[in-house]
């Protein structure tokens, strides 16, 4: 059984290593500061005992006030998981650091989020539309996009 690590428990340890990185926690997730996402993710990936080597899924949700990007991390070795969340308050030109350098599995998913949600991932090697064609107006996965 994959053990879902409690957010509070993990946050306590992380706060000491990378101060100021955690904004909030919940039972299964931690909410991470935008600026320290990269260092925190690198820490999660390499720290013995954690070793989240597998990024299963990336999602973005549009909450009107902010975008939330959700990373589902799993460790194949220890069989435990954690959910990382990042928020982005800029609606016009949202941007978040890319995690492609750490997990290549993020490549296509980040590209898809850019296409459908319009969040730019900084540092991504190929940040362009993936499923829709060039010249498509708007980002359909946003809540304020009307399909017809």
């Amino acid at each position, binding site marked *: 059984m994959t053990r879902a690590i409690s957010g509070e428990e993990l946050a306590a340890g992380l706060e000491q290593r990378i101060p100021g990185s955690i904004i909030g926690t919940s039972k299964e997730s931690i909410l991470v500061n935008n600026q320290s996402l990269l260092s925190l993710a690198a820490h999660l990936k390499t720290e013995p005992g954690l070793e989240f080597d597998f990024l299963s899924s990336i999602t973005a949700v549009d909450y009107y006030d902010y975008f939330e990007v959700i990373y589902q991390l799993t460790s194949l070795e220890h069989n435990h998981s954690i959910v990382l969340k990042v928020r982005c308050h800029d609606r016009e030109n949202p941007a978040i650091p890319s995690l492609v350098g750490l997990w290549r*599995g993020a490549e*296509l998913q980040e590209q898809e989020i850019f296409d459908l949600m319009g969040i730019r991932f900084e540092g991504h090697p190929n940040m362009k539309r993936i499923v829709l064609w060039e010249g498509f107006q708007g980002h359909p996965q946003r809540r304020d996009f009307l399909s017809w």
Partner: protein
Amino acid sequence: MVMKTEPLVLNIGPAHPSTHGVFRMRATLDGEVIIDVEPIFGYLHRGIEKLAEERTYQQFIPLTDRLDYVSAMGNNMAYCMAVEKLAAIPVPERAEYIRVIMAELQRIASHLIAVGSFLNDCGAFMTPILYMVREREKIVDLFEMVSGQRLTYNYMRFGGLSQDVPDEFLPALRKFIDQMPRYLDEYDQLLKENEILLARTKGVGILSKETAINCSMTGPMLRGSGVPWDLRKADPYSVYSRFEFDIPCGARGDSYDRYRVRVEEMRQSVRIIRQAMEQLPVGPVRSKTPVMLIRPPAGEVYSHVESPKGELGFYLVSDGSIAPYRCHIRGPSFINLTALREMIVGWKVADAIVIFGSIDIVMGEVDR
């Protein structure tokens, strides 16, 4: 003497016989060797995630059928499990068992198509895929018996199943799982040791363990590279913890290993179905849930199952209304294409097709 050569840009797809739908690769060739490849997606982007927001929870079930249309039952199950987790709906025991039987049958059907079309991509003229489709027809018959449709079943509901299986289902299923291993043996005899197939697939398209994990590969791709990671064992959902089965793994991570992993998984699925049939309890198949509208409490949930292609995850956000606020689908086929470039570059065009076939994608899930 210096000879100027110019690479040839070749568009493979989107309407190409072996791109499994409408996938497109923009390949740059040096002679026959591929020196660069760029996958292009989106030719089947139907906006399923957006459509989910416009529909009620119930109405989204038929759409999941069309996600990975080779394994509709698996998608049904994954989605229903996600909603059940979100709204805390209990599922009766019998329904769980029937779900497992359906999911495993669907895994066999999906792998049959995967293996058949993979062998077809290797150039065996139609024969393997026709044999495999014949086996699949038997499974489709069973599905038709329970749900009334041949491809888009729309069979599972929140809190169980739409209807109980008919009386004639279990004897037919018994007959099927008695026959199936024999046919699998026959198909192994057809091509398992074929020298040409070995030459075409052994050592071709090697995906190392580290790359596979780093690229978030799941399913037979990951297991073919030798990582024994199967959600049915690692994170047992439904009633999978009650069954005994092995996780077949490849050694080198080449196309042949992936092909063998799929064949072995079919045998394991038959094993699971046999156990599930023995343990199948009687009782209701659907807990008390509204037929039309449910309103799960506000919250979010990520639920994943081991679909035939890999980890199929549903990320649902509810705001307490009758429709999901956000529904994200983690399609295994889509993410399994991440390492396409590494696997294909340096091989010939013919190999590229074989490697691509061994990934086993379904465009409905790639583009969604």
